[in-house]
């Protein structure tokens, strides 16, 4: 039997994991994506479900950890981490982008916060928030604002975090930063910096080595460095695996004998199995409202609420719009946006043989990176299976 052709629609965490696992199972894989999705906007923290202090600690499964290792930019497995959000909340996370500083080991110690002002990051206010946080208080972790001359120059204050991170990729720049961090004063237990420690280069790792204490960053704003690192690592992983990657917006999916054909612009891609990992509403995968091709609004996948793919909300099928303009959010609450999605039994799209789904595209699953990866791995394996 020849290896099945698998088409993955979506290049976020779920789609990448699906392509990786289908490839490992021997399938010939093509991945089609339409640019940044939720994963490209995420904060750098890896959760199984939106975090809360109360959640029971749980470990990531082996395959997810293996995927993280293959991707090469994440720390996952072992003890949960304690990371600082952009606004100074100290929150638990199962895993993290390796540039994020894990504060868990620094109970009772003093962490230095580099005083470099950026429009998305105010170290003074950050220190205030960190010191007031319940975790820091009970762990007796202290935070100290330290002047680091030359860390950012004034003209960089208004650059986006993403563009700034790109500048830190320059080896001369990171050497300069290392010197500035070691310049004076007693060495702190760790350094906490803004969310710009490199895109393609492990700047946090380089600095940690050069400075002699852990150097890391706070979590990223939406569309910041963490998402950029994911996209870069994804492209490298897929290239290494020999997955062919195409850019385009899928607008239609239809049956083609025993398989499927997906239309994207003027291209048609045929495959025996298709994994739908086109994300939730924020990725543009699921379109609300009727598909009205005459309108540019409906960059609609046919998984529209009016379309053919089975959608579900709170366990009920969604088969028509409640109003002319889409869903009535006054009546239903805007939260439905994070619950609506494809109806699936496990990885299989309900009632559509050869069609699989993963990640935010599926209804009623927690919207989080590790959930998307676990689902992607399962969908990729199922699609590649006999």
């Amino acid at each position, binding site marked *: 039997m020849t290896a099945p052709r698998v088409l993955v629609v979506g290049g976020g965490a779920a789609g990448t994991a699906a392509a990786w696992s289908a490839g490992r199972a021997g399938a010939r894989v093509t991945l089609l994506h339409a640019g940044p999705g939720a994963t490209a906007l995420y904060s750098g923290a890896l959760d199984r479900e939106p975090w*809360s202090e109360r959640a029971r600690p749980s470990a990531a499964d082996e395959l997810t950890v293996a995927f993280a290792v293959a991707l090469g930019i994440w720390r996952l497995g072992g003890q949960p981490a304690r990371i600082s959000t952009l*606004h100074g909340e100290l929150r638990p996370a199962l895993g993290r982008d390796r540039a994020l500083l894990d504060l868990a080991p620094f109970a009772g110690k003093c962490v230095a916060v580099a005083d470099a002002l950026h429009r*998305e990051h105010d170290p003074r206010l950050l220190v*205030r928030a960190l010191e007031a946080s319940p975790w820091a208080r009970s762990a007796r972790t202290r935070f100290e604002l330290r002047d680091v001359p030359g860390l950012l120059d004034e003209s960089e204050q208004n650059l986006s975090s993403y563009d700034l991170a790109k500048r830190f990729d320059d080896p001369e720049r990171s050497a300069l930063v290392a010197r500035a961090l070691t310049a004076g004063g007693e060495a702190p237990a760790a350094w906490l910096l803004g969310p710009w420690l490199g895109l393609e280069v492990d700047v946090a790792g380089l600095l940690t080595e050069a400075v002699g204490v852990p150097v890391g960053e706070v979590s990223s704003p939406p569309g910041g460095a963490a998402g950029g690192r994911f996209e870069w690592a994804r492209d490298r992983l897929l290239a290494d695996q020999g997955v062919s990657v195409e850019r385009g917006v899928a607008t239609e999916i239809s049956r083609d004998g025993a398989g499927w054909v997906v239309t994207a612009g003027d291209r048609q891609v045929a495959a025996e199995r298709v994994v739908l990992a086109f994300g939730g509403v924020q990725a543009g995968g699921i379109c609300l409202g009727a598909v009205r091709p005459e309108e540019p609004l409906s960059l609609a996948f046919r998984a529209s609420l009016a379309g053919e793919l089975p959608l579900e909300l709170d366990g009920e099928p969604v088969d028509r719009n409640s109003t002319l303009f889409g869903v009535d959010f006054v009546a239903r609450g805007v939260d439905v946006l994070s619950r609506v999605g494809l109806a699936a039994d496990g990885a299989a799209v309900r009632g559509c043989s050869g069609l699989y789904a993963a990640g935010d595209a599926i209804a009623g699953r927690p919207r989080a990176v590790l959930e998307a990866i676990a689902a992607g791995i399962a969908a990729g394996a199922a699609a590649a299976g006999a």
Partner: protein
Amino acid sequence: MSVESSEARPDCDVIVIGGGVNGTGVARDCALRGLSVALFERNDIAFGASGNSSGMIHGGPRYLTYDPEVTHTSCLDSGHIQRIAPHLLFRIPFLAPVYRQRRGAKLTLFGYDAFFDLYDKYQPLKRGKPHVRLSADDLRRLEPGLVADAVGGVTFDEWGIDGARLCIGSMVDAIERGATVRVHTTVSEVLKSDDGRATGVRWRDRLTGESGTTTGLVVVNATGAWAPITAALAGLPPRAARVRPGKGIHVFLDRRLTNYAIVASAIDGRQVFLMPWQNMSVIGTTDDDYYGDLDAVVASADESRYLIQAAERVFPSVRQARAIGTWGGVRPTLWGWGVNEDKLSREHEIVDHARHGVDGLYSMIGGKLASYRIFAEEMTDVIAARLGNTAQRRTHVSPLPGGDEAVDPFELTRGVAIDALTAARLEYRHGSRALRVIERMKQSPREARVVCECEPVTEAEIRYVAEHELACTVDDVSRRTRLGLGSCGGMRCALRCGAILADARQQSPERGRRSALAFLDGALARRLSIVGPAQARQEALALSVLRSELGADEESA
């Protein structure tokens, strides 16, 4: 003082209840005439109709045929307001197209022309330009996006203002002239002497829970649509200060679609408008009787769609824009029985409640943004006569804070790290007082940081409005600066603003975070009615951002 009293001296001469355009206007006028004033505002300054109006300092051509007196006073006062707050006014040229499918379109056009001939007589009062009659070709050239079947149209000229900034200006001026202003402080009772005279108010601070009483010689009920409720606080029947509450909403779109404001007819024949506002577009407005909670006025889906559809009929690309928010308020219209909402007069009235047995209590009923100054002056005349004050009237010549001299936005950018757009917005909101905000940036360059990127608002301005304009919450900052009202809905800036505010007010970071969340909740409630396919993505993104920053809701075990 003409009022003899054996009692202890009252805390002040005049107590004003309500911080809308009328309340702040009276407080300012009284303070200018040397009276001591205490103003109480239940929510925030400009929280009511004044901060949620269409913001037109118009002469109201719609009143011309049945109430020309309103047109005259409004035009006259529009001129005065331009003089005292030039920075806050902007010209709004309107286009009123006439469409072919209407019966007798040519006749209608002729009628418009004649009508605006009449209106032109009032234009010089407010430095307005006379109307121009336009051919179909002219219209197409001016606004290519208009539907093509117009036979022609007319232009007419109006002025716009940021109503909230107008109220803040009056408030700041009153404070600088000795008035005491308490925001987030509701009046819970109007105190009376044994013989029924109003002697003061009992109040409660809704943020801190603190309460107390303040005594005065005169009490002014300037609570707009709340007026009947306020009258009841003095033991009067609500009809003693009766208003007809007319709810109006606006929808705003993420982009500037037109260069002119455009008049359109809604499905029921009412006139609505589509208007450019800075980098956005605004569609307004509705007018419906409203008997709901005045502290929580939000647009319904029906109202929003009514407006969007009306605008779409004349300007189809409205549909391609993303509706990013709504605002709504309740007009305190003079009571009239059984009249269609639109036919009610906007004229105002002072009710002396001596005739209901409460001497010393007055209610200001009705009025418009455009005629607030005259209304406040009439009220202050009554108070002054009562208290034997003979000081000159000065509100038509004495500039509002920042209105004293023009500053060049480009000059403002010298020596501080802000761009010209940021400076221009700052200058618009603060006039010459923008220099004070700039001065902060010179003292502390980190305050030049832009916090809200959509609008744009700097840290210096946030700290300035917290220190000098009584902003206590993120919502208050937003009302004064427009922070968080752009296309991202506060997703990127609300938490940052909360942290800065908490710092400026020496409160815990947790307080700042809660204030930010309350703002985001409120903003979401104002958006829910317009979440269509395009806005849904933004909302989903905002939900994810909040969850990754603040975690999931933890239900208490």
